[in-house]
């Protein structure tokens, strides 16, 4: 019977080992390159975001005036060489307020999706990996939070806690956590079934390490995509809250409350509304474009 398999016993292993070449590995640099150069629009969007981040970081250096300084002599001025975007009803320089306002908007746009990703992924992975009663408790909690639209939830919490910086961060984080938890839970359920997880358990890896080393790295792609997409939402919602008066509190500038202030003064000068609105539109659009590109590169289902 043994003639059914080619005899191999006597030969040294090295002779049998195929001298195959390694397949090339696309490194991190190449992946980022793929994201950036997949479409011309992504390059433009990246430049725009980089520009806004630079503006936010360098605000004290590049802003021509103190954004809080009022001047009765300079009320409602149209754009001029002294004030590129004119002044508002208190004589404050609109350009300086937009520049300083970018700090508030961008920090929320980056910080709250990041915190929400950490909180949501932890909850989702725990729910998905352990299942049973743990999963049911967490999932019902998430369902409850998801029943409210993010904006409504944010308004509820902001109205209850007030509009300090950290309150808004907490508000947005809570509002975004359920989405991350859902995605993380679903991905964990899939990854948990993978033979490599079972193989790791069989080689003696304990549960916490299984989760940290074998599950989390394999579910990160959709989480990263979600983070970029929700950065845009975070900026939008922060602007909305500030516009409604429960976000960043005046006189501190944020794009939302620049528009709010401008609305009361719409017939004297339109520059605050227009420039605030444009700033929000440009940044949100740019982040969304980058988010789309990231998704296309990380999602193997979409061919490129």
């Amino acid at each position, binding site marked *: 019977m*043994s003639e059914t*398999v080619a005899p191999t016993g006597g*030969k040294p292993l090295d002779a049998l080992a195929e001298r195959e070449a390694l397949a090339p*590995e696309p490194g991190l640099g190449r992946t980022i390159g793929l994201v950036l150069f997949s479409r011309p629009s992504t390059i433009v969007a990246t430049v725009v975001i980089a520009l806004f981040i630079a503006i936010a970081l360098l605000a004290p250096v590049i802003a021509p005036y103190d954004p809080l300084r009022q001047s009765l002599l300079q009320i409602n001025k149209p754009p001029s060489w002294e004030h590129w975007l004119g002044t508002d009803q208190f004589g404050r320089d609109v350009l300086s307020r937009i520049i300083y306002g970018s700090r508030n908007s961008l920090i929320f746009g980056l910080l709250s999706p990041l915190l929400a990703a950490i909180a949501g992924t932890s909850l989702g992975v725990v729910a998905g990996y352990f299942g049973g009663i743990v999963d049911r408790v967490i999932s019902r909690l998430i369902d409850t939070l998801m029943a409210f639209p993010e904006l409504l939830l944010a308004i509820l919490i902001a109205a209850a806690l007030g509009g300090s910086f950290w309150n808004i961060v907490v508000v947005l984080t809570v509002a975004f956590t359920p989405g991350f938890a859902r995605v993380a839970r679903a991905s964990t359920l899939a990854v948990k079934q993978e033979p*490599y997880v079972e193989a*790791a358990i*069989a080689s003696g890896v304990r549960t916490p390490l299984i989760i940290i080393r074998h599950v989390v790295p394999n579910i990160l792609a959709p989480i990263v995509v979600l983070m970029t997409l929700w950065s845009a939402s975070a900026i939008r919602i922060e602007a909305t809250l500030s516009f409604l008066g429960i976000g960043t509190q005046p006189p501190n500038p944020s794009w939302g409350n620049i528009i709010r202030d401008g609305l009361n003064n719409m017939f004297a000068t339109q520059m605050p509304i227009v420039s605030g609105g444009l700033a929000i539109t440009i940044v949100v659009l740019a982040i969304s474009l980058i988010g789309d590109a990231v998704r296309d590169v990380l999602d193997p289902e979409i061919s490129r």
Partner: protein
Amino acid sequence: MTGPLLEVKDLTVEFGPKRAPIRVVDGVSLTIHPGEAVGVVGESGSGKSITALSILRLVPEPPARVSGSVLFEGRDLMAVPKGQMHRIRGKEIGMIFQEPMSSLNPVMTIGDQIEEAILLHEKMSRAERRARVVDLLRLVGMPDPEQRLGAYPDQFSGGMRQRVMAAVAMACNPKLLIADEPTTALDVTIQAQVLALMLDIRKRFNSAIMLITHDLGVVAEVCERVVVMYAGHVFEEADTRTLFRDSRHPYTQGLLRSVPTLTSTQKRLHQIEGSVPPPGTITAGCPFRPRCSQRMDRCATEMPPLVTHGDGHRAACWATAPKAIAQGEAA
């Protein structure tokens, strides 16, 4: 000779409701001695993989209910607290899985994955661990191991990944290596290489091997002893030579006739009519009864016990059991 390395006694794995349990493994007993290669053969659904997973307690309980005992060096693994099993897994018993394409973590380099297994069980410095990883890779026949430590699994072919899997399983020099269909997903030339690797591992580490397969040719190549399983039962157990020459179970005989040979002139391969009954559909008697050419009335009501036919040769069949035993059992 020292005592057996692994002694599985009356292992039963059930799923489903307690009132109407579905037995996937039903009273399986098998023994593996130190350094011995034992093949476990059976069709899909015969319970061979679940048996292997039960030894390492990898079958999730619940939903499964596992009973019986698994003595490893005289110590009952079934009685080891769940939190302590990780000391046995990888260290005392290594395992190679069926699918080399998906049994490695795609986002970890192969060097890190092999090192992880060492890190868990041995106290070594980082440099010592790295050196051992390189040694292991060289041992499993990986060319240029130093250069390939930092490569990811998707850069390798299936055969190469199975070598990496073997390196992970052998990282801590386990006394028993369980290989669950290590050659199934590979093409024939690579299969031969992996089998050669198994033999080599055995020779160098002096590990016992439990080789799970549905391929009798693989068994003939590697194993000294064979256990034939069907629908959760052990049907026959013998040393390889005896099994191939003097099988005492109609199922094993059917399997052996189904293997194509280079010299045969027949156009169609022999086949055993029908297929393995779904678990839970046969509750009494012999599960092979509907497909068996030698079935008797008795087979419908009583599962035949394993009857000794010679030195270490046992078979569970009423038709071939010596008359005295068959009648004695009935009386």
